[in-house]
């Protein structure tokens, strides 16, 4: 797998989609992300990001989720 297209949710642009390839958060945070449907191999689309290190909004399946900036920086996405 080439890594040149892998970025975090922070770097992903609003409106862009991709596939989750890595969750680099701690065990607890990873578990919470997974139970919200954000898991490796899932399609994910960034809806928006707030100013000044605010949360990122994403869509996974039929769910929209708001993710804090720090946690979003640990979700790695391969851009489609």
């Amino acid at each position: 797998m080439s890594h040149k297209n892998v970025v975090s949710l922070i770097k992903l642009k609003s409106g862009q989609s991709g596939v989750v390839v890595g969750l680099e958060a701690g065990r607890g945070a990873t578990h919470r992300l997974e139970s919200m449907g954000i898991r490796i191999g899932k399609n994910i689309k960034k809806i928006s990001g707030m100013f000044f290190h605010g949360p990122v909004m994403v869509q996974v399946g039929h769910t929209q989720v708001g993710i804090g900036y720090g946690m979003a920086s640990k979700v790695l996405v391969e851009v489609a």
Partner: protein
Amino acid sequence: MKKVLLMGNPNVGKSAVFCRLTGVHVVTSNYAGTTVEFTKGYMLLGQEKAEVVDVPGTYSLEPTCKAEEVACEILKNATKELVREGDVVVNVVDATNLERNLYLTLELMEQNIPVIVVLNMWDDTKHRGISIDVEKLADWLGVPVVPTVAVTGEGFSKLITQIYKARTPMVRKHTLEERWEDIGKVVSQVQRLEHRHHTLLDIIQDLTIKPLTGLPIAAGFAYLAFKLIRFIGEGLITYVMQPLFDNFYTPLMMKFSLLLSSWPFWHDVLIGKLIGGEIDYFQSLGVLTTGLFVPLAAVLPYIVSFYFVLGFLEDSGYLPRLAVLLDNLMHKIGLHGFAIVPTLLGFGCNVPGILATRILESKRERFIASTLISIGIPCAALQAMIFGVLGKYGGGPVAIVYTTLLVTWIVLGFILNKAIPGFSPELLLEIPPYRLPPLNILGKKLWWRIKGFLLDAVPIMLVGVLIVNIITVLGLFESVANLSAPVVTGLFGLPKGAVTAIVIGFLRKDIAIGMLVPLQLSIKQLIVACVVLSMFFPCIATFTVLLKELGLKAMLKSMFVMITVVLVVGSLLNLIL
């Protein structure tokens, strides 16, 4: 008695299912974490009465916040006791989010208790281009699966017959990875998705969440909500309650006053002082005059209008979006965006607001949020009285009170965030789709909250006025007033008489504000008194819930913060104004 536990992810409609099964009303909304305590009700299963428990929502059986802990605790207790025949978990699943919801389903099936899966919001799957093969899903899981629409009642007769048949599935413990693998398999077999075009609703959803458009829209909504609450509240007072009292109640009380004229003690207690030979509902201070007028004519209209607007906001699904928009600001005061929900609830009544802080992850956040609510957030009853007393001087004085409270809320939050070790956890929040709230559900929720006010608050107010009158007639307030004079007169610039109001504020803040009127305070003194009363000692109901939620030690800390803040802000206002 048989037990039926309703369990599922947050915001899948467990509480709506609960209302349908038991006929008991509980508050439902369109955001995760409306239920933070468990509620019990009863239903008939054939001839037999069964207990139904509405368990707080949880994504998994490994809790991440206090509300989820409550959920897991309830399940543990249910499975620890010998599972009696008929005990059953009804796992409520959001049919439009099958994959994510099934994780908890699989966990529940490993718990050695019968499980029934309810595919709720079934009607929504059709407009979203989702089709689910219910029979195949039931086969695969090995437990009954029933599609329902809780807000209309569709599918409930079938659900009730299935509760009889539920059996314990024989499933071994799986690992986390195995569960997700299983879910992937089953979802690909039973669910089909059709491509769907962007609808108008999707566009609105995007506009309200993008920062450039979302923040102005949020400010617009806040302004509209405030205007609407004022409009409905003032309208109800001017056109309904005031005429009712003037035309029907006052003549009755004047007759009663004549009757009591030879019993001055009882006249003082029940009717109070006549002002220029007439009853003045704001100044007479009798149990049957001021004691009834304040809750029914001054406060109730605002309770109605506030909860009408709040109910609409709650059920539409806007609040979680507001949480995302305000996440930045809230982090500065040691919280994250979702803390805006308990805060907004606090504007109705501090008690449900502080209870709702259970959706926050850490003890630190709950302490900060609860302390900020009890100091900086005036409840609807208190606000109604602030408008009642200050409103006649125009918008300025009211604006000063609100600005002071807001600035205190932000500055204090900032200080607490710096002073308390630890950090504020990150926001991770499911954003539900917008839904147009069904009117019957809005109406029921509003009625339930009004009833709560009438049954809980009004008796306390009547008792409060009664106690004040008896103590005043007996002259017992003198010593307390003298003792606290240095603070009240020295720092706040208020007359000694205001001590009575501050003390009675412990019972009800609204009555306390009402008691300021006969003191003939200047505008400046009224503003200081309103701010001091809003911030100072929480009313007894809030005090009890703080003690219960924070524990004695943290509650005392919170009280210490409160007293410090009220002394500083009260004296500053007295100096500046």
